[in-house]
């Protein structure tokens, strides 16, 4: 039927989050959804990779070969990215940025493995955005004086006239929302478009959607991962006051 796109229960377009298992949490009805399952699969893959990498690196040789080469290349590139952006504040953030980079990248690419990408669920990306928000403000209070923060929050006007304070407060709160919505909407749009291609075109969508997968999953996923990590690092190093 013509309106079957809109009434999605009648068509085979399928990109929604589905509940897998229901349980009761202090009287509330809580669901284990496909997102949890996909996050678990991604985590298992990453844990397996890191266990193997750790075992290989414990027997590291001076002249690297094979798998050791790959692991060293990944660590070197990630550390180079963090060091180039954060400057002298970088050593404390190699681990965190590297971890979320690899996690978000694998989550975005997992559409290729037939999973529903975990980052196409707002819960996942909001959690990542809130971690960034917490990191920004913890670093701000650790490395700046409260007086400087107050002057910064009232910024275009002098500090005894806090008319701009509410507006600056809103712009601070908008940071995690825009970070998480950017990642979420990019990955969700890729997922929805692939679902539309496969659901509406039927047998016509046989081989050529591979090109779309390269764009929506690989390119868009990698770019958004890079952007999320770069913005996190930029915000944190601004909060630390490194660039003054």
């Amino acid at each position, binding site marked *: 039927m013509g*309106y079957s796109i809109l009434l999605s229960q009648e068509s085979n377009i399928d990109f929604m989050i589905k509940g897998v298992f229901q349980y009761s949490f202090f009287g509330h009805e809580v669901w284990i959804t496909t997102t949890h399952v996909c996050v678990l699969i991604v985590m298992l893959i990453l844990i397996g990779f890191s266990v193997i990498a750790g075992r290989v690196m414990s027997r590291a040789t001076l002249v690297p070969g094979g798998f050791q080469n790959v692991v060293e290349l990944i660590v070197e590139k990630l550390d180079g990215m963090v060091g180039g952006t954060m400057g002298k504040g970088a050593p404390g953030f190699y681990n965190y940025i590297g971890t979320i980079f690899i996690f978000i990248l694998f989550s975005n690419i997992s559409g290729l493995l037939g999973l529903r990408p975990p980052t196409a669920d707002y819960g996942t990306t909001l959690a990542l955005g809130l971690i960034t928000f917490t990191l920004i403000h913890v670093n701000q209070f650790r490395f700046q004086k409260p007086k400087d923060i107050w002057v910064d929050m009232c910024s275009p006007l002098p500090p005894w006239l806090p008319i701009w304070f509410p507006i600056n407060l809103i712009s601070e709160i908008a940071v995690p929302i825009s970070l998480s*919505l950017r990642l979420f909407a990019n990955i969700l749009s890729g997922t929805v478009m692939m679902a539309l291609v496969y659901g509406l075109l039927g047998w016509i969508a046989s081989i050529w959607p591979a090109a779309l997968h390269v764009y929506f999953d690989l390119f868009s996923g990698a770019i958004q991962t890079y*952007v999320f990590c770069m913005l996190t690092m930029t915000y944190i190093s601004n909060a630390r006051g490194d660039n003054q």
Partner: protein
Amino acid sequence: MEFNEYFILGCSAIGAGLAVIAGIGPGVGQGIAAGHAAAAVGRNPGAKSAITSTMLLGQAVAETTGLYGLLIAFLLLFVKPLVP
């Protein structure tokens, strides 16, 4: 006056179409950013990698407003908040 479900669905579809007009702004902005990046590479080919990463970062930030429109279109089409 009473409206049935299909009327509201049709209006939601029109609203979704209007919401993705928000894609015009990011398109223009990303084009401007890419044009200036190309000019910058022409002036200073040595800084190509730094220029490319800055351009991608700026384009991704500019893209956000368009994505908000896209999200509203998705909400209207698939979550159907207006249908009773």
